[in-house]
């Protein structure tokens, strides 16, 4: 992960990974907003029911964004198999390596202003790595499972959604339970996104490497030559 690091630029995120990131950003934003509005709808519309389809549109956006998120998720798994080494980072966590935990602690201390400067990483730093795997990979997967199980309810018995995901509802309890966990998941992801955006901007400025531009161009650049 962290071989010869120098000020020379490294090509980290290949095009499919970058596209996936930004598509994900968009779909998660839409999913969170529309999901919240499905749980707590906008003020009531007046007039004839046949003149409006507000809730229908909100739900449509939610489902469409969910399909994009799901296809992206599958595509990302495929790219983890065929892409470069960094494309696999989101799918494995080196918890058995002492070095991972030591660097994780260092990163935490850096954020707590206890370290003078951060280490340099070609891929994600250990703290980011941990959060990405837990929230995006595992969390995203849980949201897909619960989301499709709920979607299966309206598509109906015997649909492929029901066959693939319908079993989840009796496993969790009942429909309302699945809704609640899906809703909690939304808040977890919202909080993560806030942290992610703040830290990405901050690190882009104060750390020793590029962050935001890397997710645009794919190239990681470093601000100094020290190890």
């Amino acid at each position, binding site marked *: 992960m962290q071989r010869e690091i120098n000020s020379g630029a490294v090509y980290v995120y290949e095009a499919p990974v970058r596209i996936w990131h930004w598509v994900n950003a968009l779909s998660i934003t839409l999913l969170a907003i529309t999901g919240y509005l499905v749980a707590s709808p906008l003020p009531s519309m007046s007039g004839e*029911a046949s003149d*409006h389809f*507000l809730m229908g549109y909100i739900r449509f956006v939610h489902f469409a964004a969910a399909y994009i998120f799901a296809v992206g998720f599958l595509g990302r798994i495929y790219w983890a198999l065929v892409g470069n080494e960094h494309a696999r980072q989101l799918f494995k966590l080196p918890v058995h390596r002492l070095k991972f935990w030591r660097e994780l602690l260092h990163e935490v201390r850096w954020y707590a*202003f206890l370290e003078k400067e951060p280490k340099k990483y070609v891929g994600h730093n250990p703290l980011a790595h941990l959060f990405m795997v837990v929230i995006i990979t595992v969390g995203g997967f849980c949201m897909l499972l619960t989301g499709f199980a709920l979607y299966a309810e309206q598509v109906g018995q015997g649909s492929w959604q029901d066959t693939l995901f*319908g079993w989840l509802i*009796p496993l969790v309890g009942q429909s309302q339970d699945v809704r609640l966990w899906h809703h909690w998941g939304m808040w977890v992801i919202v909080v993560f996104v*806030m942290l992610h955006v703040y830290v990405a901007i901050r690190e882009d400025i104060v750390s020793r490497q590029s962050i935001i531009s890397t997710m645009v161009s794919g190239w990681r650049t470093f601000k100094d030559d020290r190890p």
Partner: protein
Amino acid sequence: MTETFYEVMRRQGITRRSFLKYCSLTASALGLGPAFAPTIAEAMETKPRIPVLWLHGLECTCCSESFIRSAHPLAKDVVLSMISLDYDDTIMAAAGHEAEAIIEEIIEKYDGNYILAVEGNPPLDEDGMYCIIGGKPFVEQLKKAAEHCKAIISWGSCASWGCVQAARPNPTRATPIHKVPGLAKKPIIKVPGCPPIAEVMTAVITYILTFDRFPQLDRQGRPLMFYSQRIHDKCYRRPHFDAGQFVEHWDDEAARKGYCLYKMGCKGPTTYNACSTVRWNGGLSFPIQAGHGCIGCSEDGFWDKGSFYDRVTDTHQFGIEANADEVGLVAAGTVGAAAAAHLAVTAIKQAQNKGEQDQ
């Protein structure tokens, strides 16, 4: 051998014409095509009435009360012509030890051939002492009857899920039928609801008699023909939901106009039942039509899923009661504030570093 349904009906003075009409009505009530009317007629003409033991555990008798209000078919037709309801302590004539003797007799006479219908459920705490029938715990009676029956019908949410007596903290450890330890492994059909719709109950019985098997069941053992869709899917107020027209208060204009009750905590979107299609009291109405949200009475553990009047209900996990939206907003606010504070400290540190470098 007991009489066939047809013989019993003829004996009661029902004409052949009425009998055939009844068969087609039943076929349509079951959602079967017209081709099935002769099948039902044939079954009724040739098959003997099935003996049914209807036991009551911890319950409120609302299932029986619902059952006797069935219009298609009429409860009396079911009780008097279709099944041989040998024991049901709500509507049987005998009482006391005479009643108890009937159970013994049925178990002996129709060993492996009777249907056990259970309304309510057994409490398991204190060796089942919270429900005593004829001086013995109900759970013992249930186990014995289940041992020799052909199949079990779990009437209502009590027998299917546990219902109100199993709501937190479940003081008597009331346990739904399929979870009773040591119960003989028999096919179980769940007909949940508190109570289930009368027509659903009678239709399930009719189906079992006609085809001599259970109707198709879903993952949780409920008949698909009545429990495959949510109240929400067939609700007559659904267009208001899609349009975004909601009742916000019980006495607002939207409530008078009959808008969607989603915001008032209606559990229609999470409840599998046939209320919005079959309706109640002979198709007259159902809760949402009367202006109150669905409370989700046919769902597992519906008593413990937060208030009947909340949309985003509270979560009870690890002994904590919390609302996702309240916690989420506080968490997002805290994280936002923390990020701002962190940013401020970062800026100060950066400035200090700069100062040190400049010197």
